[in-house]
């Protein structure tokens, strides 16, 4: 079943076409990677899907309903949540309260919300820091918090915007593990922007490549790694899969 359809989506800023007639679909349960050079329009595509920007042309259909141009909070209500590349923790609130803000979307009861948020905080590995103010977290901690808050809104589809940017290889590996667990445990569909090739290649079922706002390829990781146009535009050389 198709969960998200992006249909001829175009987003312009004045004369600049940031997202240029992009179409693809995401299947239920799939992990779709989204890669491309800086400025390719990845985050703009996210923003146009999740309600931050209103696209000029095209349609976004999520779970059978057109969500083109809906406000961010309405999109989230329908089960599509996004994280931010530059993390946006509620700095003065502690970790648990940050996650409670997400969890309140699905019910008004404080006790239920609290226990649900508690479970998710433990799940992403922030259990020991639950009562620390979010501003005290390390970058890796903040990335986990972004995941936890998004997860608490009980989404069907999560858009992850460079969750691994700025992390050490070890921390990245740990986040990949968390994302895989999220996918298993919560049966989520994921659309993931990432520059860490190792991570995106192993995580994704398929990968879409944006270049100058256009979709230049969408295929399995193996096929993408060997794709001439992708190598030209982004990878530079053929990506070598580590031997297992």
């Amino acid at each position, binding site marked *: 079943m198709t969960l998200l359809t992006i249909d001829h989506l175009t987003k312009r800023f004045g004369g600049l076409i940031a997202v240029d007639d992009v179409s693809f679909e995401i299947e239920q349960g799939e992990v779709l990677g989204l890669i491309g050079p800086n400025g390719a329009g990845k985050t703009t595509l996210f923003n146009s899907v999740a309600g931050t920007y209103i696209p000029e042309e095209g349609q976004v259909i999520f779970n059978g309903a057109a969500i083109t141009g809906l406000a*961010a*909070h309405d999109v989230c209500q329908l089960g599509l949540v996004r994280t*931010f590349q530059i993390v946006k923790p509620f*700095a003065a609130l502690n970790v648990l309260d940050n996650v409670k803000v997400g969890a*309140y979307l699905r019910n008004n009861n404080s006790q239920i919300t609290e226990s649900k948020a508690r479970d998710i905080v433990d799940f992403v590995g922030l259990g020991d820091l639950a009562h620390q103010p979010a501003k005290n977290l390390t970058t890796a901690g903040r990335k986990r918090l972004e995941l936890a808050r*998004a997860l608490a*809104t009980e989404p069907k589809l999560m858009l992850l915007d460079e969750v691994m940017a700025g992390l050490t290889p070890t921390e990245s590996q740990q986040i990949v593990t968390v994302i895989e667990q999220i996918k298993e445990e919560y049966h989520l569909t994921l659309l993931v922007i990432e520059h860490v090739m190792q991570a995106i290649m192993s995580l994704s079922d398929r990968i879409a490549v944006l270049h100058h706002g256009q979709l230049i390829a969408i295929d399995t990781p193996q096929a993408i790694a060997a794709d001439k146009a992708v190598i030209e535009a982004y990878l530079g050389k053929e990506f070598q899969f580590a031997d297992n």
Partner: protein
Amino acid sequence: MTISRDYQILAGLTLVFAILPLFANQFQLTLLITLLYWAYLGTAWNIMGGYAGQFSFGHSAFFGIGAYTSTVLFLNYGISPWLGMFVGAGFAALFGAAMGFLTFRFGVKGHFFALATFAFAEMSRLIAQDSDFINSTIGLTMPIIGGDSWSQMIFEDTKLYYYIVILGMLIVATMISIWIYRNKLGYYLLAIREDEDAAAALGVDTLRYKIIAVAISAAITAIGGSFFAQRFGFIDPALVFGVSISIAVLLRPIFGGSGAIWGPLVGAIFLTPMEEFTKIFVRNPPEFLSFMKGRAGFDVLLFGVIIIIVVIYMPDGLVGSIPQWLERLRRRLRGQSQSATQEAAR
């Protein structure tokens, strides 16, 4: 069911404030009424300015609407202020919601929002000054009834009754404030204050919740305006719609700790006596400070200095800063004892 810690604190404070008048003379009783009155208004401001982080520099608009509504209803139609104050609260909430919609809808934020609220307050003052049916600049005066009347909320003989009324109002306002803080609404308001985009991404309808915060804050403030009219016995546009009310309302929560449940009360407990004693001091200063004698506005000057100190040294207010200071002190003491043991080990 266990009673949460906030309500335990509230119960304790209620007890203290219930007993205090037994030991107070008339001057101290007046001081206590003033203290609770500012704590009440600060609590109202805090819901919008502290929790939701929408800094209001125009709360006098709500205050004046409350004062005028209940007074006009009372003087012209004989409606009891007990009823009139809720009508005023309703008007103020509507006015606040409209103001919130007009500003938030068009993305007015931060300093510009504060200026916009100020503009709305000034507009309402000018409209009141030019409205003959509320007696324009001359103002309205409560009748002298020669005694105490609970039904008319006028107490000419027994000040204690005003104390009881304002204490009751503060308790209710604090309960509302606690309830908001500990429930979904409060979490959403704090989230909006901390990062609006992130809140929206988590499903928070930021426009709606900001308007709700303004409306609640406005309604509570308006009832404070009605109380002022009853107690003071006279209102005019400059008095109740003036900028000095807007400033005074926000001082206590900011000093005590905006965004904290107890910030406004703590602020009022510190600032109200300070303000009163400054006034007395200026009235009759010692010889070497005789140049200050009779200079009005010294208390305002002092408040200016206090704000500067707060902004620099305790941006989280007293309630937020004291635990931080204690923690720092504790660490320093521990650090010293550690270095002492290290010295001894050598």
